[in-house]
């Protein structure tokens, strides 16, 4: 079943045409990956899906409902969560308060889900009263992901979750993504780390200067020569 359907979106920053005629879909239960070099428009696509930016054309539907004009904050309770690029946790709030913000629309479920997140990330539990800004980069990324999980999303969009992390943490983050997927969450992943991303992706799209240049199954794209040259270092 189709969960997210993006049809022909065009997004501008003033005069800059950042996303051009982009269409793609994410089916329920998939891991879909969006790769592309710096400035290709990956983050712009995610922000448009989550409602922070608007497309001038086309249509975005989530679970069969047109969301192209829905305000961003309303999409959270509809089941869409977006972990933005650069983590964007609340640096002056404690770990626990950050998680509570993640449950802003989750009501009574929040406390139980915070316990689940603590179980998944024991490090966060140890640091529950620590101020977000004093966490290490990896801990901040765990908090950013954990925070998004509190709303129990149907579709989790992750924007470069491995950015700036040591290799061991990168594999850990990918493990977590696989676990979340196994637990039934559909995932839309934006990554620079094309090699690891293509390995776990059911399908992938390659974005080049705002356009979708290629798409296919993760395994096919990983074997494609063009991809190897451009993104896999040979």
């Amino acid at each position, binding site marked *: 079943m189709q969960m997210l359907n993006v049809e022909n979106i065009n997004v501008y920053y003033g005069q800059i045409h950042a996303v051009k005629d982009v269409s793609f879909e994410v089916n329920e239960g998939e891991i879909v990956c969006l790769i592309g070099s710096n400035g290709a428009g990956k983050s712009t696509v995610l922000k448009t899906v989550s409602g*922070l930016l608007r497309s001038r054309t086309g249509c975005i539907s989530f679970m069969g409902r047109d969301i192209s004009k829905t305000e961003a904050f309303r999409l959270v309770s509809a089941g869409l969560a977006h972990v933005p690029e650069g983590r964007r946790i609340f640096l002056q*709030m404690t770990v626990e*308060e950050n998680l509570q913000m993640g449950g802003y629309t989750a009501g009574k479920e929040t406390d139980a889900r915070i316990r689940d997140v603590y179980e998944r990330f024991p490090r966060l539990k140890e640091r529950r009263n620590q101020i977000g800004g004093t966490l290490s*980069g990896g801990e901040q990324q765990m908090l950013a992901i954990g925070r998004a999980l509190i709303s129990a999303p149907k579709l989790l969009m992750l924007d470069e979750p491995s950015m700036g992390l040591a290799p061991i943490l990168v594999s850990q983050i990918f493990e977590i993504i696989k676990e979340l997927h196994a637990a039934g969450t559909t995932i839309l992943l934006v990554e620079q780390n094309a090699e690891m991303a293509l390995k776990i992706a059911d399908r992938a799209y390659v974005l080049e200067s705002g356009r979708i240049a290629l798409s296919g199954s993760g395994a096919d794209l990983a074997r494609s020569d063009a991809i190897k040259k451009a993104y896999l270092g040979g």
Partner: protein
Amino acid sequence: MDFLSNLISGLSLGSIYALIALGYTMVYGIAKMLNFAHGDIIMVGAFAVIVCINTCGLPVWLAAVVSILCCIVLGVLIERIAYKPLRRSAPLTVLITAIGVSYLLQSVAQLVFGSEMHSFPKVISMPTIQIGELTIKGNALVTLVVSAVIMVVLTLFIGKTRMGKAMRAVSEDKDAAELMGINVNKTISVTFAIGSALAAVAGIFYGSTYGFIGPYTGSMPGIKAFVAAVFGGIGSIPGAMLGGLALGIIENLSKAYISTELSDAIVFGVLIIVLLFKPTGLLGKKIKEKV
């Protein structure tokens, strides 16, 4: 004992500044703008009390409630009409708009009430207290106690409640807050509402302390409260409280012991010295971001 009396009236004046400074700092924190019309809300609140009591004959408590409600509606409308469309504009554009709104409020007040001063009705009927040689004006005591209660309640609200935490989240990162499901527009409106309500309360105390209100009455306490907010660290709520109290005490003590004419100069001088040594204000903090 004289000193103690002066200190207490300084604290009382300072708590008025603190109430106003809280509005400045909360709005700055959440909307990243200096709302220069904030001082004029005080004037509107005070005039609302004058009209309610002198013209409509309402009891004091009801006049206070009406005044607070008027200011809340006004503050929220100003944000919606004047500031919201500029949310992504340059800071200078917003600042000039805020100054424009300030002049607008003053001009409308002048049109309605004339440019002369109006005497403020007696709303606080607490007698002067005499303990040995210590004299405390009833007005000062009520101002001090009510402001203290308001500040405690506000601190708890921002620290502990869902809306208070949402306000902190929005002031840190609007997009991230929106992605949490927080209605950012509503949260900003609530902040303007709270700031304006505090300004109305400050207007009532200011009117009772000085006895007269005119269309331009709001600008001086407005500027001083802005100074207090910067002094304490703009954006910081305890900073605004501390800055307001410190300003009131410095002003009153310099009036009493140095010179009435120079008191304002001394107040601003102290601010400059503090900012030289601590550019972010007493409690302002620089956040280091991890990349």
